[in-house]
């Protein structure tokens, strides 16, 4: 493999039901920054069926090229046809960097494809940069420049490692949703559109989808919320979450929760923040009755402002909170809701 043959930054633009996932735009945002440093361009690769309409939007968000792989077999995600298609793209176009979202699709597709093209893959990255490997020059070892340095948490968020893939191409990473920033939309910006036929081969590894069952969820996506009012075990019961819902309502925010709350059956899994839930970075994060185990804080500590209310003054949540209040949430939260209501009324 000649590493120099590989050029350009590519991203897997995930679509589900022919709607682009938010991660596609986040990856373009990051890829754009990397491509600038490398003096190259950004390609968004879309797999699916009847997907030509998606190209424009990818262009408006910063993709320089859009590769469309349109095939009936790719209509709904299955590992094998998707892996064949993305592998064919990599072999044909030879990108030096291939980014995939660390979603339930990407974390299946990424490892399969990276093994198939015999390169490395770094999982669930939270930061990507261009730099040298090794970081400092070492005697007897070639220091390579313009490498993708991939940083990721491990050990439940307790350690962070920066990883490079110096001798194989493409350099592949899956990237955690909600961490990278999208670019501003530029209406009318156009990408070069390329249709690519990977010539799929149906084999025994094609699984059969018998049924697709979508979760009936009436709740807003907590990853999009600007204000999150999050409750933990300390809230005490499912009924007590009414207090948090009232507070969220006056602030125009959304309720989320810790794992203990999901385990107790008080709230559904899609509201869970943390290592095994979602990573959020709202403007304001209220942590109410949440002790703040690292598994939880790993998913929210990037929030702009963290306000914690907990009766236990030794709770670890206070170590990450900007403003910590030691006190009884049952007294404080309802009074806070009323006070904010009054404040907002006075401002109008």
């Amino acid at each position, binding site marked *: 493999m000649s590493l120099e043959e590989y050029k350009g930054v590519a991203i897997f633009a995930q679509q589900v039901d022919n709607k682009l996932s938010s991660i596609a735009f986040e990856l373009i945002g990051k890829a754009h920054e990397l491509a600038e440093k490398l003096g190259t361009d950004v390609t968004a690769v879309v797999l699916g069926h009847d997907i030509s309409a998606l190209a424009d939007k990818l262009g408006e968000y910063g993709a320089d090229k859009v590769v469309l792989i349109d095939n009936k077999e790719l209509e709904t995600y299955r590992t094998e046809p998707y892996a064949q298609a993305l592998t064919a793209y990599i072999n044909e176009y030879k990108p030096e960097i291939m980014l995939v979202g660390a979603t339930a699709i990407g974390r299946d597709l990424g490892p399969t494809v990276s093994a198939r093209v015999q390169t490395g893959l770094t999982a669930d990255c939270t930061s990507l940069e261009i730099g040298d490997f090794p970081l400092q020059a070492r005697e007897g070892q070639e220091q390579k420049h313009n490498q993708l340095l991939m940083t990721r948490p491990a050990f439940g968020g307790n350690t962070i490692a920066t990883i490079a893939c110096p001798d194989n191409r493409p350099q592949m990473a899956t990237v955690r949703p909600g961490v990278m920033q999208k670019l501003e939309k530029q209406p009318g910006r156009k990408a070069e559109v390329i249709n690519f036929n990977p010539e799929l081969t149906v084999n025994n590894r094609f699984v059969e989808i018998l049924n697709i069952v979508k979760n009936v969820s009436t709740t807003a996506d907590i990853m999009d919320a600007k204000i999150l009012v999050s409750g933990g075990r300390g809230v005490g019961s499912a009924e007590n979450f009414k207090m948090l819902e009232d507070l969220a309502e006056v602030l125009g925010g959304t309720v989320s929760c810790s794992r203990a709350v999901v385990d107790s059956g008080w709230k559904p899994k899609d509201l869970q923040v943390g290592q095994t839930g979602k990573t959020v970075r709202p403007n304001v994060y209220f942590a109410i009755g949440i002790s703040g185990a690292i598994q939880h804080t790993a998913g929210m500590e990037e929030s702009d402002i963290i306000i914690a209310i907990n009766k236990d003054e030794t709770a670890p949540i206070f170590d990450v909170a900007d403003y*910590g209040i030691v006190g009884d949430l049952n007294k404080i939260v309802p009074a806070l809701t009323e006070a904010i209501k009054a404040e907002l009324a006075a401002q109008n």
Partner: protein
Amino acid sequence: MNIVVCIKQVPDTKGGVKFNPDGTLDRASMLAIMNPDDKAGLEAALRIKDETGAKVTVLTMGLPKADDMLREALAMGADEAVLVTDRRLGGADTWATSSTVAAAVKKLDYDLIITGRQAIDGDTAQVGPQIAEHLALPVISYAEDIKVEGNSVIVKRQYEDRYHEVKAQMPCLITALSELNEPRYMTPGGIFDAYDKEVTVWGRDDLTDLDDANIGLAGSPTKIAKASDKVRKGAGEKVALDPKESVEYIVGKLKEKHVI
């Protein structure tokens, strides 16, 4: 029917981790446990065994002390255990790990391979699908439910906002979520039996279908440039006031930051 379950011994991070005074992780104080997703995978295999009489073999790659975890799997009801251990295999990334595990699996009879989705130390979720890739098997990741029907498996495959009910022909590989089930406890008699059994131990040289270019640190395409324990964000202000003052304090901060 033969089921191979791939399991990993990991440090227990449940209930928080411990730090040394210098802020680094105190790994020595943490118990070594069977990775939770892997344990769910083992339970799924044992349920299939309960129904069909399948033979369940557990396989791990790790340090010699992983023997304890294999005994635990035997005490839960697994029939056989294999430990792949060799210093030459150390420092492996997911590519090298999956190449090695696949080479070990090839020496066994299998219709179904189950792995956990991801390990709580590495959190990569890559080894399962990559083992399938090395063995050219169909893979179904993120399994919430597994049923065996004749020569096929029917799996509920989880996504963020839905699940797919997927059917695959065996042999195939499934990665299990810890939500899949509540793993059973060992039994006291199972523990005694487990320590009477032989655990098969394989070193590098027992894995004939494996290229040296694909093992250990040297065979890993990804290299660690830097690793550190996470420096936690410093604490902000902390106050203990009566409820009324607390409310005034929060409202004041929200105004100061132009939230309201």
